[in-house]
């Protein structure tokens, strides 16, 4: 019968319960200490929250790629971080060219969407090739096999792009109209954060429309539910899978440009690794395979990362709390996997299979 119904004592359950209590205690004590010390003002909290939302919306865009592919193939595309890198890295050169000619600052509302399109198309191509070359031949093999392939593909992409563009760091040029901040009731919010959040939101709305309203979107959902019946409807499964990789790739590439505008530094061949894992965490957090879950998970992770270190870790007296955002992110991943493996919006696997 079900494990939780037995009365037998289990060390695993006991440890997990203790862990649960300790975590809640830690969060409460840390937050209490911070709030009662009043070290951080309300305006600063709002600023942290806004920064978290922008960062989170970038995670969300990347996380959608993981979730779309998982929804359709039950496979984690661990090379997705590199798909993100491909678009971001390639577009640096376009951005530099736009900057040199002055186009970037003369017509930013034209230049930035063009950059987003370009990065999206680059990443889309990479994602489609990845599917075609590395994953499709292995379809139907045990689930571990494509996972290992993904790691191989990930290194292959990193070093291919290193070969193409070199190993040095590049930076996106500054966009003038995105500098500065606007003041809302005494709280200054950087314009770039507003730009990041709303452009990511616009892309997510486009995705939502695509999946919910269009013929190919319905086919994607049909394929993710039952491939065999989808074939009986005349749906070309291979095309739909390729299309799904393409859409995920496009979102990752556009996230690359948005990220480049948000944090100009640090564009190089290895840049996809951390955002890739963070976005994977976000996808798991929201419930992998679930599209609104990935969006929510991304935003949630971004906010937790921004607020968590200051609120909890600093309150517990941990030094250099601000540099420990990654600890928060990956602790979240572990906690979700222990306490709610299906994620925030995910359904239990047993229900899904029924």
């Amino acid at each position, binding site marked *: 019968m079900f494990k939780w119904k037995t009365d037998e004592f289990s060390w695993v359950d006991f440890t997990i319960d203790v862990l649960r209590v300790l975590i809640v205690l830690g969060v409460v004590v840390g937050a209490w200490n911070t709030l009662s010390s009043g070290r951080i003002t309300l305006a600063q909290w709002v600023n942290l929250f806004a920064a978290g939302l922008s960062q989170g919306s970038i995670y969300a865009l990347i996380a959608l790629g993981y979730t779309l592919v998982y929804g359709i193939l039950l496979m984690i595309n661990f090379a997705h971080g590199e798909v993100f890198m491909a678009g971001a890295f390639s577009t640096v050169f376009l951005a530099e060219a736009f900057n040199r000619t002055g186009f970037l600052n003369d017509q930013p509302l034209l230049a930035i969407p063009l950059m987003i399109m370009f990065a999206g198309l680059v990443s889309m191509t990479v994602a489609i090739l990845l599917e075609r070359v590395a994953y499709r031949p292995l379809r139907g093999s045990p689930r571990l096999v494509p996972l290992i392939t993904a790691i191989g593909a990930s290194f292959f992409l990193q070093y291919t792009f290193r070969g193409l563009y070199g190993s040095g760091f590049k930076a996106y040029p500054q966009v003038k109209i995105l500098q500065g901040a606007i003041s809302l009731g005494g709280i200054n919010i950087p314009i770039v954060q507003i730009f990041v959040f709303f452009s990511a939101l616009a892309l997510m709305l486009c995705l939502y429309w695509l999946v919910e309203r269009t013929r190919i979107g319905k*086919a994607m*959902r049909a394929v993710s539910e039952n491939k065999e019946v989808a074939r*009986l*409807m005349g749906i070309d499964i291979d095309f739909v899978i390729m299309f799904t990789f393409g859409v995920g790739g496009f979102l990752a590439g556009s996230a690359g440009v948005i990220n480049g505008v948000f944090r100009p530094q640090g564009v190089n061949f290895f840049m996809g690794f951390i955002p890739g894992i963070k976005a994977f965490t976000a996808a798991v957090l929201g419930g992998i395979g679930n599209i609104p879950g990935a969006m929510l998970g991304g935003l949630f992770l971004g906010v937790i990362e921004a607020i968590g270190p200051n609120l909890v870790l600093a309150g517990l007296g941990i030094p250099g709390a601000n540099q420990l955002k990654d600890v928060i992110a990956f602790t979240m991943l572990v906690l979700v996997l222990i306490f709610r493996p299906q994620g925030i919006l995910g359904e239990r696997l047993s229900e899904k299979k029924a």
Partner: protein
Amino acid sequence: MALLEVKDIHTYYGNIHALKGVSFEVDSGEIIALIGSNGAGKTTTLRTISGLMAPREGSVTYDGEEISRMRADLLVSKGISMVPEGRGVFAKLTVEENLDMGAYIRRDGAIKDDLKSAYSLFPRLEERRKQFAGTLSGGEQQMLAIARALMSKPRLLLLDEPSMGLAPVLVDGVFETVQRIASEGVTILLVEQNAHMALQIADRGYVLQSGEVAISDTAANLQQNETVQKTYLGID
């Protein structure tokens, strides 16, 4: 010439020899019943015709064309549509989206009209068009699966156990619907464990036994056949 001609097909699940040389024909406009007990190879036969499985030997000819190695999704545009075993509705798509998927291969403007005629055939579906298909009852799901298969405007409709798991009242309704579809000129190949009902509406029937055709005759004769009566109709 027959619309569908199945000739000596051998289909395997891995090493399991499921079909051992099945042959039969379906003429245009007929209702053909394939009956047999569990594991006789009825479903495998349909899956082989619809392209979900490929036979190792033998041929399937549809409208004069060899199709046994063709992909399932391409066969739909040739006019073969299948209602799979267990209905196979997309639970997380709405009723109307399921019907849209049935018309996936079509680009013509008549889809809206066909949606209307699907709803007039099954008014229950229209009431529930915005509901997720997973929330429908078994009978409604069967209606949806049939209506969806018709949305591709098939010439040949393959039905796998349409009465399975339905209350007896609903079973009559399903078979009436099948007859109505046939009267509109759709050729029907029906796989059933409910041999009694299947033979009542069919023109001809084939009895499958351990992967082979054991008896083939007109439906009326099969109903009188002693072996069929004993084994499949429960008449002593």
